[in-house]
């Protein structure tokens, strides 16, 4: 499947791009993270501590164990600091 992946805040800075399109067969968010991390060191480094990261699937907060079936947009980012 084709996924649009977005990165925000320091995660965007570490990975070096705000968004990218990825072809993947990953079943879950965690699988996708493992796939990206295996690709290049900058991903492995950025995703080294998942407890410091949040994920949204099609603009809704989700868990790293969530399935990717039917998803088009995945966003990774640090805990939010609005207000």
């Amino acid at each position, binding site marked *: 499947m084709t996924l649009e992946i*977005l990165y*925000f*805040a*320091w995660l*965007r800075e570490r990975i070096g791009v705000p968004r990218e399109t990825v072809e993947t067969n990953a079943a879950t968010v965690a699988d996708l993270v493992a796939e990206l991390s295996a690709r290049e060191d900058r991903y492995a480094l950025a995703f080294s501590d998942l407890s410091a990261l949040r994920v*949204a699937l099609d*603009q*809704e*907060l989700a868990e790293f164990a969530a399935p990717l079936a039917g998803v088009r947009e995945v*966003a990774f*980012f*640090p*805990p*939010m*600091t*609005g*207000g």
Partner: protein
Amino acid sequence: MEIRVQSDPFDFGRECAAFGAGRQDIGAIVTFCGIVRGQDQGQLHQMEIEHYPGMTERALTQIAQDAQRRWALSDCLIIHRYGPLAPGEKIMMVATASAHRADAFAAADFLMDYLKSRAPFWKKETRADGSDWVAAKASDEAALTRW
């Protein structure tokens, strides 16, 4: 109910004046305004707010709808800026209106707690010694358990 996500400044006084104006069913209005502090851990030069266009509006709408389900609100407003902000600039505001003060207070407090930790905004602060992303506080996440 109104949600606005914008880079432009907003006029807090004008928004307060217009909110609920002319309605006779409103007995209580609570407003909150968040402002860039200049003196926090050394002089701040700039605060940059990044957000996730699309998801931001969805998240804020969901939070506001949640508040409307929990309390008897006559009206509800959220404005949040993004982009570069200078010390003293207003970052965001919420306003709630209700027949009675308890509902208006609780809803505004709730909106702020959820907006802090569940709306996709990130703050980066620039000082003389460089830039840093603001870390989420454990106390902000803990505040959600109040509701």
